[in-house]
């Protein structure tokens, strides 16, 4: 693995660690109105379905986004 690739690898680990260990607070159900907004959903949206498919076919990388990692040809 090239050195610059390795450094990219640590970015999500670092960000996650900082977020998790420094600022987590318990949020009560009645305080979740902002988090429950449709646009705050942590999953991919239905309208992105075809986007995720074509990206998984046209790019070498796939996965970790709710899109396809197998099944289907991508023959063209």
């Amino acid at each position, binding site marked *: *693995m*090239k050195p610059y*690739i390795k450094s*990219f*690898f640590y*970015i*999500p680990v670092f*960000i*996650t660690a900082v*977020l*998790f260990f420094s*600022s*987590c*607070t*318990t*949020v009560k*159900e009645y*305080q*979740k109105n*902002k*988090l429950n*907004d*449709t*646009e*705050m*959903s*942590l999953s991919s*949206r*239905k*309208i*992105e*379905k*075809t*986007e995720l498919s*074509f*990206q998984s*076919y*046209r*790019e*070498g*990388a*796939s*996965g*970790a*986004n709710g899109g396809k*990692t*197998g*099944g*289907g*040809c991508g*023959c*063209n």
Partner: protein
Amino acid sequence: MKKLFLSVIGMYFTMLAALSQGNPKTDSVYKPRKLTFEEANLVSSYYRQDGNNSAVTGGIGSEKLTDLSNAIDLKLYRYDKRDRKHSFTGEFGIDHYTSASSDKIDPHTISSASHSDTRFYPSLSWTMENAKKGSTIGAGLSLSTEFDYGSFGANVNFAKKTKDKSGEFSAKLQAYLDRVSLIYPIELRTGTGTRGEDDDYATTPRNTFNLDLSWSQIINQRLQVMIDGEVVYQHGYLGLPFHRVYFADNTVHVENLPSERLKIPMSIRANYFISDKFILRTWYRYYHDDWNINSNTLQLETVVKFTPFFSVSPFYRFYQQTAADHFAPYGIHTAADTYYTSNYDLSKFNSSFFGAGFRIAPPDGVFKIQHWNSLELRYGHYKKNIGMNSDIISLNVKFK
């Protein structure tokens, strides 16, 4: 094509007819024991691409392609005696594509078998959510079939929330058992009378097994994040039989790739509620596989809410990858190479994808039709720095 269009219109009206039967209230108090309609979605997309690095013609030639896809899903639910919510989702999708490069598999035919094709992909899934325990289990089955490819998929999943419901762990195990039809370029076919117009092509397996683990966490009243890691193992025929590779000595061969591939993508998603007008959605992924593709992807999307029921979401996605070990352009591979491909999707490149989405979800329904919950439209332009570009426009109609 006309049949396909009529089928989609037919399914759309069937769905509307089902909705007109009435929909019991789904507030937190009412917990129906009978199977009850929850929501239905129609997602339609039109995709077009162009470029000059088609793998069918050995890394040179037109990549022109169009794809029209339509998918309808219907979600029903009921509660059992122990107050557990059972959700059942059925989905049916149809893609119709035309491909200039596939017509080069056998240029002697007016139009080869794979010049245009239709893919059907039905799926069924079930989940059972126990709100008291904060746990969910589920399972699903899927099929996908087109002229030269068939796929059967199965999955099981599990999720568990923390006691204070601020965190959730989920796991999903998936398997895809695929069959690839061995349709070779015309000049590389052996035997007699095998122009390939019949349907008796030999097939070979391609299997994919996938474990996806994720953790989502509420950080505060405005911020939530999710980390996601997957291990994907593929085994079988991982190339495509009609991908040509031209060697340095001008001989032509069928793409040859290893029969195993291990992929490890890891991602983090963070959504931040800046204000009532702005929401920031971010996503980053690091990817590595044992063909030596390393990749980074970053996506940023800002949701701008003009009213609580109308929003516009401009987005930008940057992608970068290194080349697979076995890739070389036209005329570079030699007989000394064990594995070889000139598929530019496995080459070194970076790409940009940008566009915007529009969403309306009025409280009294879209165009005042009560059950028409929302309407979304999204356009994106995709551009690789190696000359390939594409456009996609998608529509999502949701009934609830």
